[in-house]
């Protein structure tokens, strides 16, 4: 091939440009830390990165949902165990009053005690978290139990999504718990009956309420079991979410992050090549036939 001055100078220029382009890419990788910082760099990887990032963001959102559900359930759980304590006291008192003889004073004291226990049960039924009444169903911005113990809430329970397509009940309605909804025993009516029976010393009636007390206790126990299993699911969902986020971030990192060692060593190679190319082209273009003609 015939070579002219312009052939060599064009070649030098083109080759230097190729080296500089490579250097530019490497410098961008090393300064951003990303191998893929534009969708055109690697469209297939970019699509995967976006999908995985969306997944991570969704998992983070589910973690927030799980936190919200956890605080609701923890609060519900602690008021349910307090209800158990109240019911235990009620039962002790009822058993005590259903046998033996008591004078009017004893009866009055027992009535007073039971009234207080009922009020405790009402106030536990009106437990709040951040202004939300836990046992009110969907009507959770007003106290679900009024001063007489009548239930004004709804029988709904709030579902919260904790994973795609998976929800847990984050609340348990007071209707099933204490107000006799779903074929259960109304605890407040039971208390009222008990109080009037104790007041009148009607031991048969007191005895009849004992089974109702047991029934209410088992209602609360099964609610507690439900809350407990929900909380277990939340714990599992949390750790699944954390594991998946960890795995996702590793994959994203493999797809997107620059391999610094590789980048730095490539950059050094390109710089050496650049210097060599400049030095060589300077030497080549120095030589001319003109130097030898006089």
């Amino acid at each position, binding site marked *: 091939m015939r070579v002219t001055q312009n052939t060599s100078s*064009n070649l030098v220029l083109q080759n230097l440009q190729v080296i500089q382009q490579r250097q530019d890419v490497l410098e961008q990788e090393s300064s951003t830390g*990303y191998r893929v910082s534009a969708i*055109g760099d690697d469209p297939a990887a970019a699509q995967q990165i976006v999908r995985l*990032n*969306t997944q991570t963001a969704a998992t983070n959102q589910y973690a927030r949902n799980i936190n919200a559900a956890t605080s609701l359930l923890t609060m519900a759980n602690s008021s349910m165990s307090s209800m158990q304590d109240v019911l235990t006291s009620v039962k002790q008192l009822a058993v005590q009053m259903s046998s033996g003889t008591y004078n009017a004073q004893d009866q009055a004291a027992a009535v007073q005690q039971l009234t207080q226990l009922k009020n405790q049960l009402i106030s536990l039924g009106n437990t709040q978290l951040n202004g939300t009444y836990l046992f009110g169903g969907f009507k959770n911005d007003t106290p679900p139990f009024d001063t007489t113990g009548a239930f004004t809430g709804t029988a*709904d329970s*709030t579902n919260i999504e904790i994973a795609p397509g998976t929800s847990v009940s984050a609340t348990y309605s007071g209707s099933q718990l204490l107000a006799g909804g779903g074929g259960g025993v109304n605890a407040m009516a039971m208390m009222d009956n008990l109080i009037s029976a104790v007041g009148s010393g009607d031991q048969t009636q007191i005895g009849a309420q004992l089974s109702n007390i047991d029934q209410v206790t088992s209602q609360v126990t099964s609610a507690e079991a439900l809350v407990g299993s929900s909380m277990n699911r939340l714990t599992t969902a949390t750790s699944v979410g954390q594991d998946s986020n960890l795995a996702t971030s590793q994959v994203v990192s493999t797809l997107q992050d620059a391999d610094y060692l590789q980048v730095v060593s490539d950059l050094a190679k390109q710089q050496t090549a650049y210097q060599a190319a400049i030095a060589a082209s300077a030497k080549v273009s120095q030589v001319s036939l003109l130097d030898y003609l006089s």
Partner: protein
Amino acid sequence: MDIGSSALTAQRVALDVAGENIANVNTPGYSRQTAVLQSQIPVSVNGLPTGSGVQVATVQRAYDSFLQNQLVAANAVSGGTSTTNSAMQMIQPLFNDVSSSGTGGLSGPMQDFFSAWQDLASNPQGVAERQAVLSQGQQLVDAFHTMSSGLTAVQGNMNQNLQEITADANNQLKQVAALNVQIQAAQAQGTQANELEDQRNYLVQQLSNNVGVTAKEESNGTMTVTLATGSGGTTLVSGNQAGAFSLQANTSNNGFYDVLVAGPDGATSNVTSQLAGSSAPGSLGATLQMRDVTTNNYLSGLNELASTLVQQVNAAQSGGYGLTGSTGVNFFTPTTSAADMSVAINSTDQVAAASTDPTTGGTGNNINAQSVAALANTAFSMTGGNMTLGGFYTSLMGQVGVGVQSATQNDDQATSTINQLNNLWTSNSGVSLDEELTNLTSQQQAYQGAAKLITVGTQMLDTILGMIQ
């Protein structure tokens, strides 16, 4: 003596040619020339054939018409790829969901919007959560607007570029026609017009970069230039007549320009779609292609996403109940275009989290908020099959990414083709100083020899004349 004088003349011409070559070593498009020497017809002296010196038969230029045609074709491709590449570089940031600065793209805002509904489901009465739904909705709308207006701006840009490209091309067409006249005149006189032909060839290469053309040299020395849009391309230059491009706003295409060609014969034709579909488009064709095809595809994808999102969110939101019992209220103003998207509600009470009237059924009802949030994971029937909104966007983004990648690769490839052809061209037609200097030396020596011949002849004559004295 005659032989010596013919040699002097011939070597002087050869020296002139070498001088011209050296002077034009860096002139773009200049092909090196060679003086072709030829011995003159011998004469018979005393029955013996005796040489009668040398003459310059012709001044030839090193020119390869095949290479020229390849350069014209390669320029048509390269003009197109560089235009496409720079346009794609403008589009890329709009869809760049993986940028290191975290700007650009829709996947973030879309995720945030549905996350806000999730938060609302956890606390359906919360004013802060309701406000978040509204403001994330607004941010989503803003993101759609940014992308849509960015794409429209690219189209507008492309449209404006047509003015400069066609003005440049028209100028080049006129110059080619003018050179045709001069070259034809020179050939009619029997002289060569090497430099003019070089200029014309170079001009056609540059023209092809603007508008893909093919050029054909006629027997009378003129060049016929036609649009490189397959067989039957419109003629642009014929003899001394140059055609011209003109632009005309087309109301049925957003008022964008149509490209018309007034041919040398005076007939005007609309070549817009012909150019946009050409495989050797030049800048002009690629500009039209970006404006009318590529960008439009991205825009229609974006509009489809916007329209599905608006429709689905509206259907879910209007089926639910706001905090004060409002129902049937749209979240977004119904539209099918990303540019016209807007949030339709302004009161936080109207955000429908509940599936029944909260004034009677309780404000804790979060069922509708969950339904809206679940839209993020629901597959809808869209172009390309059943997919989620996020999936549709990701594939649209992938399309743009592949577009950017192939535009870059095509441009690199076209540039390297041009480089390689230019190297071949400089190798074939370029001036080598070493060669010219060597020629110069040999011509100088030949000149000295011829001069010596005349000196010897003169001395011989002197001798004869001396004898007479």
